[in-house]
């Protein structure tokens, strides 16, 4: 399959849209949960105000505590929106040098809720500014997402999936670690992995399984650098 193949382009587009939809649904769900907490906190403040109106003496610290908790929920919701915004803007650019610590950190943040639902933790173990790659950030995020989806049910008894990265001669290697029973048959990136495989081909990557070390290994090569980044 070549990158100019229209079937490949279609698969890449569909997978990109699927990934963006998955992340948007997860983030909107998380924001709604934060709004639900803020709604209850505001309701509680109203209850306290009503009690004060009816002559009950209320410790002002109780109000201050609730106000602080509302601010904390707003801060968390803002952080989630910020992550979605960074993902949305990554669509704009391709052929740019990216810091993998930054990119993997963003994907891990976006997958936080899904991981919590699966009762696992995803740990990004890439020091800042240690590994860079010239690539299309949005497509790479989608590919990492597909690898996380594939790896999540295979996380070993530690319940912690670690994502590590290292530089290699013409690109970078990303490792999804602490997986039990991972095998070569998993390298098709799952039953519905056609889109992820198309992205893999487009990014000049290769995926392999290291059963002995419990790792899914994603090898990526540097793409042609474009000044300032541009549409793929």
């Amino acid at each position, binding site marked *: 399959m070549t990158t100019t193949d229209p079937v490949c382009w279609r698969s890449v587009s569909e997978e990109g849209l699927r990934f963006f939809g998955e992340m948007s649904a997860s983030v*909107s769900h998380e924001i*709604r949960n934060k*709004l639900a*907490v803020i*709604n*209850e906190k505001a309701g*509680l403040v109203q209850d306290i105000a009503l009690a004060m109106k009816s002559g009950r003496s209320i410790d002002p610290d109780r109000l201050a505590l609730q106000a602080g908790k509302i601010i904390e929920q707003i801060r968390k919701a803002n952080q989630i929106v910020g992550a979605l915004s960074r993902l949305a803007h990554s669509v704009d650019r391709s052929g740019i040098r990216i810091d993998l610590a930054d990119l993997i950190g963003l994907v891990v943040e976006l997958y936080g809720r899904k991981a919590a*639902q699966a009762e696992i933790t995803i740990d990004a173990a890439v020091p800042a500014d240690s590994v860079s790659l010239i690539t299309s950030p949005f497509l790479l995020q989608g590919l990492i997402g597909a690898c996380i989806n594939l790896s999540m049910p295979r996380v070993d008894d530690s319940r912690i999936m670690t994502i590590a990265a290292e530089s290699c001669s013409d690109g970078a290697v990303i490792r999804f670690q602490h997986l039990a029973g991972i095998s070569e048959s998993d390298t098709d990136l799952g039953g519905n992995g056609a889109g992820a495989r198309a992205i893999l081909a487009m990014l000049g990557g290769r995926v392999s399984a290291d059963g002995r070390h419990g790792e899914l290994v994603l090898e990526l090569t540097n793409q042609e650098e474009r000044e300032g980044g541009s549409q793929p």
Partner: protein
Amino acid sequence: MNEKVLLVDDEEEFVETLAERMRTRGMKVSTTNSGADALQLVDDESFDVVVLDLKMPGIDGIEALKRIKRRRPDIQVVLLTGHATIEKGVEAIKEGALEFLEKPIDLSSLTEAIHKAKATKMVLVEKETEERIKEILHHKSW
């Protein structure tokens, strides 16, 4: 009516604040953050209504609903969700949920659902008692 309610949601701040507001409205409220603990509480205590979040780690809302209904068919369940879909709503009602409410919730709607749930439970308990009495009368041939 002093309804006895169990609130189940993995978001601790949500569940504790909602519980506080419900208590000031005269309800007896217990809370937990997991489906597994909710099942244990349902086994150990008597509740009129269980208010369950749909999405939780481990045993999710629908699974908890099924298991509660299997153990204690008279307990009424209200499901809460941050992302309502028609499919999930239909599934919840099919599995025996009395109401399916979307977050952020309106406390008066939830209170109304809880009043309705307690009334439904009382009718079920009365029916069950009536059946039992009929059965005893039949067996004793009085």
